[in-house]
């Protein structure tokens, strides 16, 4: 298939405004009479609030209002389970819980005033380990619930017990992963403007998911959705991180804005951001695998425990993705998987790029290497014996029969580009000196979009203006990944016009069709289809209008190169501009609402059987490392990443996703960890929470594999998240080869690499304060 706009490295449509500094981010906005909001956070991870006295703070010069839980019409919100407090009512449940919010004429006054709020606490013992929370007699984190379990998902396939009796080799291993921070460069920012343009309140800011934010604000204010308007601004990163924390901030600002009848702006400092915003779930994972001597897997039993922290947030769905993908892309006749989430008094955990996959991929891909070792096989051989192919049946009993299962292809391409086979042999020989090299691989399959989590549909408006210029307004929000560019390319492709005609609007919830969230690597797939659908409707309108007038068959007309042609004789009938003129004259409506609903899926909660996702993507990453075995330092020399994306709508922005995903995975694998001791967070800024810098970036070789998917626009599927679920296990496997020692806990920091275990300053409060 030949394309004119898609499948091309088109320049980002928002590049100019961003590189020239003209793009406006949340914190750049100012409104007349605007106040500044600041939240007072808890002093303890778990405590009863006896009394809040705001009197002194209210008298501080410039202070206009202070709100506490009392002032919030409906204090609980949440996307899945509504138990997150906008402001702590009777108890604070984690260290970042808000207690009161001040609105003042200056930032400084707001910051000073919160120090004058007197809170009387009764400190309560907390639970900081999900396994403690799981115990029968554990105190309840949410007193209205029966226990501390957020959720339990199951997959049951075959008879695991019997299968293990037939296994010739059985391996049991435990792996753990840590809390990590999204580290978006732009901290949270929100402005709530009261009574603007017929809305009760309009919210601007750094909002990942405008519609989730609208739901939360409307629910909190107890007003209909059409009274709350959310307008997204440019975003300085999100990675799944600007959802509930932003909703909560928006709700607080909205209450204050209505109370004062003045716009209220809230911008977190980095410390506030790290203290308050949800993190990636730490997991404890027990894996048991059985295989034949020849390396054929016969059974797998898995138990994963996720720390949900104080609130449910996205734990139910995060652990659901884990349960579906926990075995990895391997054919297994018998599987028993359980994933659990438990409440604790740690910081709450939620969506972060990968969403329940980086943890289990780390475990399962480490396990495959350990098993290969046990079986005296290479990691590659073992994988090739067991991976999914066309028509394989997954652990959930889904037959992979509606798309190309390209694992073998991605593995082959990554193996070739990395010289894996030769290097694996070379690095297995004994190496002189302290610096040892290793090469490691990881593979995965990943369900595209939401799956059985929720209804999965998206919409978009494409509107041709009188002069032939085009506006697109989609319900899915740009998060910085290049969504606007990709959607513009798709509209331009369908309408046969230059992308320069298109102006892409920011999401405005009062205008754009509700489309769910920019999550689950679903936007190109779902939103792309919606844009395509809208553009196709307009195309049909144009071709029917012309067919009618020129007495040709509308089916013979094509839109291409800014013109309309008769495809039978390739004759130009008229230009696109003339067609728009004609439509103007004839009163033909050249706008359309596009809609796309994902194919049906199914899921049985008891057995975990069904069709959890309608299609999957496949990837293989190979890491080459050099480990300084006398200091514990790891240098990642090279990463090869082969990903089947169905179709690359924009190969350059797609490579950007691969580079970025790998760097995030490198941080996850080697250095990042939010250090939490008894619920207190130790590292609240980037001087102590270390993420990789450009100097740590290895050579990265991205390999784009294209097997068009029948459901994707032009065959496109997903790329955002698969890129970051493979890096940490690939690096861990390479480090294990280099050092001869397996590390089963992330991150692979200096201490773990040198000593085999981590060191901690200890868990008492005094160490942190």
């Amino acid at each position: 298939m030949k394309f004119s706009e898609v499948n091309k490295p088109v320049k980002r449509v928002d590049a100019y405004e961003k590189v020239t500094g003209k793009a406006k981010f949340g914190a750049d906005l100012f409104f007349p009479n605007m106040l500044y909001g600041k939240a007072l956070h808890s002093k303890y991870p778990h405590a009863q609030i006896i009394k809040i006295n705001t009197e002194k703070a209210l008298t501080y010069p410039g202070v206009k209002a202070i709100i506490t839980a009392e002032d919030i019409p409906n204090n609980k919100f949440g996307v899945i389970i509504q138990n997150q407090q906008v402001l702590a009512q009777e108890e604070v449940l984690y260290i970042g819980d808000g207690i009161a919010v001040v609105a003042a004429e200056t930032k400084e006054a707001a910051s000073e005033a919160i120090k004058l709020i007197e809170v009387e606490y009764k400190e309560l013992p907390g639970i900081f380990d999900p396994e403690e929370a799981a115990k029968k007699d554990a105190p309840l984190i949410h007193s209205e619930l029966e226990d501390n379990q957020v959720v339990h998902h199951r997959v049951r396939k075959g008879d695991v017990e019997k299968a293990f009796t037939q296994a010739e080799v059985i391996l049991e291993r435990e792996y753990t992963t840590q809390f990590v921070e999204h580290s978006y460069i732009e901290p949270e920012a929100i402005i709530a403007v009261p009574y603007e343009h017929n809305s009760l309140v309009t919210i601007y800011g750094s909002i990942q998911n405008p519609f989730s934010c609208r739901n939360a604000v409307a629910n909190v204010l107890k007003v209909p959705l059409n009274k709350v308007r959310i307008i997204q601004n440019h975003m300085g990163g999100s990675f799944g991180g600007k959802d509930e924390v932003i909703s909560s901030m928006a709700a607080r600002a909205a209450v204050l804005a209505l109370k004062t009848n003045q716009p209220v702006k809230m911008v977190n400092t980095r410390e506030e951001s790290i203290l308050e915003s949800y993190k990636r779930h730490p997991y404890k994972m027990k894996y048991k695998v059985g295989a034949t001597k020849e390396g054929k897997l016969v059974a797998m039993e898995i138990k994963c425990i996720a720390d949900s922290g104080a609130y449910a947030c996205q734990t139910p769905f995060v652990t659901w993705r884990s349960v579906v993908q926990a075995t990895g892309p391997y054919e297994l006749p018998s599987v028993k998987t359980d994933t659990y989430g438990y409440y604790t008094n740690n910081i709450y955990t939620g969506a972060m790029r990968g969403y329940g996959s980086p943890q289990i991929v780390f475990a399962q891909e480490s396990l495959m290497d350990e098993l290969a070792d046990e079986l005296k096989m290479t990691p590659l051989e073992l994988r090739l014996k067991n991976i999914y192919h066309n028509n394989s049946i997954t652990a959930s009993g889904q037959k992979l029969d509606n798309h190309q299962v390209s694992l073998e292809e991605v593995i082959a391409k990554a193996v070739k580009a990395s010289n894996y086979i030769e290097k694996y042999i070379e690095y297995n020989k004994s190496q002189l000196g302290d610096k040892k090299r290793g090469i490691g691989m990881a593979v995965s399959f990943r369900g595209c979009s939401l799956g059985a989590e929720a209804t999965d549909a998206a919409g978009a408006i494409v509107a041709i203006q009188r002069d032939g210029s085009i506006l697109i307004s989609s319900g899915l929000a740009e998060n910085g990944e290049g969504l606007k560019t990709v959607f513009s390319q798709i509209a331009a492709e369908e309408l046969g016009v230059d992308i320069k005609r298109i102006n892409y609007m920011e999401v405005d919830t009062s205008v754009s069709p509700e489309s769910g969230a920019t999550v689950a690597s679903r936007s190109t797939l779902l939103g792309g289809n919606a844009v395509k659908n809208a553009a196709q409707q307009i195309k049909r309108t144009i071709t029917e209008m012309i067919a009618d007038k020129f007495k040709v068959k509308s089916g013979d007309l094509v839109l291409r190169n800014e013109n309309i042609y008769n495809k039978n004789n390739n004759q130009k009938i008229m230009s696109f501009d003339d067609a728009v003129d004609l439509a103007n004259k004839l009163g033909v409506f050249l706008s359309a609402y596009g809609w796309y609903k994902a194919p049906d899926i199914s899921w049985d909660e008891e057995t975990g059987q069904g069709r959890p996702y309608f299609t999957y993507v496949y990837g293989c990453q190979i890491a080459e490392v050099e480990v300084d075995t006398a200091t514990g330092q790891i240098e990642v020399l090279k990463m090869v990443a082969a990903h089947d994306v169905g179709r690359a709508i924009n190969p350059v922005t797609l490579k950007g996703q691969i580079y970025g995903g790998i760097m995030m995975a490198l941080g996850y694998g080697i250095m990042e960890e939010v250090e939490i001791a008894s619920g207190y967070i130790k590292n609240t800024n980037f001087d102590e929470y270390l993420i990789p810098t450009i100097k740590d970036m290895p050579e990265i070789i991205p390999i784009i594999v294209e097997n068009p998917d029948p459901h994707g626009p032009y065959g496109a599927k997903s790329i955002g998240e698969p890129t970051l679920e493979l890096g940490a296990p690939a690096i861990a496997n390479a480090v294990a080869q280099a050092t001869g020692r397996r590390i089963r806990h992330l991150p692979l920091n200096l201490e773990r690499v040198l000593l085999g275990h981590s060191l901690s300053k200890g868990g008492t409060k005094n160490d942190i304060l």
Partner: protein
Amino acid sequence: MISYEFLTSKKIEEALDYLDKFSKVQILAGGTDLLVNIHKESPRLPHFDYLLDISNIPELKFITLVKNFIEIGPLVTHFRLIEEPLIKGNFPILSTAAQTIGSVQIRNRGTIGGNIVNASPAADLLPPLIALKAEVVLTSKKSERILSLEKFLTGPYKTKLQADELLTKIKIPLLGDGYYTDFQKIGRRKALSIARLNLALVTKIDEKGVFHDTRVVPGSATPYPQSFPVTEESVNGKSIFNIDLEEIGEIVSKEMVSITGERWSTPYKKPAIATLIKRALEKIIKEAKTNEN
């Protein structure tokens, strides 16, 4: 929020006047330590009412050779330590250490004077400067005194600087013939990385290949950087042809623990500090052997 009056001057004399006239003055050079502490409202920061900006005093930005000393103005940036031929030629160890500090932005602003007076246990210039037997010149309106850098440091983030004194000069005696130096550092990432551990080694190797006048100063190993006399003595008198590096590694680990006791990080630092001294010695020995040929 910390509030203060802002003072600035373009001349040493004027700065010294301010220090004399006002009390509770905090000196600002590059600001890369101080501004972070102000932002954090760090408990390490003493209460102050005035901030005295000295960054515009040209008289504090020199690097000169005076007799047997290289003299360095406190406002000399890390970037200049890396680039300046006088430093590169005489004390390559200082350039190497400066190169590992922070990032380009930090190296362009951060100064040698700030690194010294801030007196962090992890400061990257302190171990090489102590190993080079650097001296600091402290000037007040009324007097001037010279202290060895090692004596100037009194604890983590603590020095003998008096409230009315300005650090005006760092003096480093030239090394004679036969001296070798090396600097090693471990960080958690490749840039913008505070030393998990670092180590400066200065030593003289005579014609027979025997070590003399060895100076070993690790950083991030003890509450504040200091020389390790036991280790130094155990190197002195050994020959580059048969020194037992494993043994020296064990000695330096033991000496560290004798100063700090067992701490949470000791299990890591013990083997790591041994690695650093072995590497520094290996490098120097290799250099000495090539020089012989």
